[in-house]
């Protein structure tokens, strides 16, 4: 291919005038200045150049927002390594030192109160606890994904505002995992632990057994025993004693009658009906087979069977049907009852913290 150009046009092109640099000395000075600029300044001039792409700007903005949110979340939930302690009465002891004014509890240290002292304990940045008289509390771990205490004895009232499963309290026989709540945990001298949930719900674990205790219910775990059937906080002492004997497999036939007689009826408020339903749901598998149908009928009188659950299946203690019943009885943030966005958010958080 031999390119050709009109000779006249070529002549005009060749005779285009050479333009002169307007101020050569100024340009030379500028070159020398740039040539001998320190490396930092050179890099600075690079950064001062115009933004190269709107997509880059958008990506940078998105990155800044995400990074900011991540930093904020980490700062919000990362606990300090020492948790503040303020005496409310008497002279609590922290790490072997008597606390006169205020102090801090470090990992591995004990906070102890005698019969006349009480204290508040900051739970990192996620809540506050009230440590009652005759209590022993040790700070075990202050991580981002788990903040753990041991309550060896005494009473401990916690109010927590954090994603589920971050705050955990161990007792000699159980583990209470916060699911977003306020609760009181009492441990007596034998180690028996009693959980009373005031708001939200708490997961109570003993060995491999787990139950979720929602607001308004109490559950107990005895030394060597199993997790007790959760019951409404207003249940009479007589009915509680009968329930304890059923849980301990030492019940008399009349004990179940006492418990069933203390349950709410179909005409009561749904909140109270649900509390009794949770007790009855646990009892179906704990009473003698000859009385399971009686308990189950009381349960369905309070809360209708969910779809896919049959009487025969529940009396045969079918695990899948029991689980469907459980989901009906615990419409919490962790299960149904919320939008898919909150469910997805919870799943992502749980995946992240694990």
């Amino acid at each position, binding site marked *: 291919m031999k390119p050709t150009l009109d000779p006249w046009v070529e002549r005009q*092109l060749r005779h285009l005038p*050479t333009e002169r640099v*307007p101020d050569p000395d100024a340009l030379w000075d500028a070159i020398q200045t740039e040539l001998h600029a320190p490396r930092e300044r050179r890099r600075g001039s690079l950064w001062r150049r115009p933004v190269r792409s709107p997509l880059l700007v958008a990506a940078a903005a998105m990155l800044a927002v995400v990074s900011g949110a991540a930093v904020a979340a980490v700062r919000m939930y990362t606990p300090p390594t020492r948790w503040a302690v303020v005496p409310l009465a008497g002279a609590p002891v922290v790490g072997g030192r008597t606390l006169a004014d205020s102090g801090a509890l470090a990992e591995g240290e004990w906070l102890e109160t005698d019969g006349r002292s009480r204290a508040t304990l900051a739970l990192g940045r996620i809540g506050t606890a009230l440590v009652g008289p005759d209590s022993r509390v040790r700070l075990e771990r202050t991580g981002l994904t788990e903040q753990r205490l041991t309550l060896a004895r005494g009473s401990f009232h916690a109010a927590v505002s954090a994603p589920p499963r971050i705050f955990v309290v161990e007792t000699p026989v159980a583990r209470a995992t916060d699911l977003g709540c306020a609760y009181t945990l009492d441990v007596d001298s034998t180690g028996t632990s009693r959980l009373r949930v005031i708001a939200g719900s708490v997961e109570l674990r003993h060995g491999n057994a787990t139950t979720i205790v929602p607001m308004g219910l109490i559950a107990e775990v005895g030394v060597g025993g199993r997790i007790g059937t959760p019951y409404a906080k207003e249940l009479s002492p007589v009915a509680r004693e009968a329930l304890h004997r059923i849980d301990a497999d030492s019940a008399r036939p009349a004990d179940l009658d006492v418990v069933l007689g203390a349950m709410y009826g179909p005409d009561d408020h749904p909140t109270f009906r649900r509390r009794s339903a949770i007790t009855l749901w646990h009892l179906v598998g704990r009473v003698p087979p000859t009385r399971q149908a009686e308990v189950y009928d009381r349960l369905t009188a309070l809360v209708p069977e969910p779809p896919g659950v049959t009487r025969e299946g529940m009396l045969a203690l079918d695990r899948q049907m029991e689980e469907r019943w459980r989901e009906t009885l615990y419409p919490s943030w962790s299960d149904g009852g919320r939008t898919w966005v909150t469910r997805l958010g919870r799943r992502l958080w749980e995946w992240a913290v694990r």
Partner: protein
Amino acid sequence: MGNVRVAEPTPETDILEGCRRGDPEAQRQLFERYRDRVFSIALRFLKGDEAAALDVTQDVFVKVFRAAPSFRGEAQLATWLYRVVANACTDEFRRRRRTRFFGDLPDAIHPTTSPDRTSDVRTDVAAAVERLSPTMRLTVLLRYFEDLPYHEIARAMQCTAGTVASRLHRAHAILARELGHLTSAAADVEE
């Protein structure tokens, strides 16, 4: 009256050697020798934007002086310089195109083709060159304005001589179409 002694121009090899050592005198000589040519190419390529052309010129010499120690001399100094010019012009063109995305910076902020310095014909010729695509524009400038042979243009633009020929062929067709109304009339006047 004695003979007037005229200083011999310094050979390019000496200038290049001085630039490799960072000798300011050699750098100044290189600058004096090529500054207007570099500026002119940049000015034509950037459609008369004098400020941008000065930036490109400054950028070219800074890059050349910085890279001189590693220049191995496989090409002529001028060819290497034109390669830096071509890259700088292309970079500047890309930068302007991206910046224009945001809605500012017209093509020419300070057009330098003033009526007292160029004829109408030259203005039309320069305008026709400015309307070529960037690669064709640069090829035409190096071919006719700098009078470089094909292989030198190919080295400067980092392409093959065949690509240079192809670009020139297409550029000739475009220029012939755009300047066709001038050729016969102008030829008559010249005769």
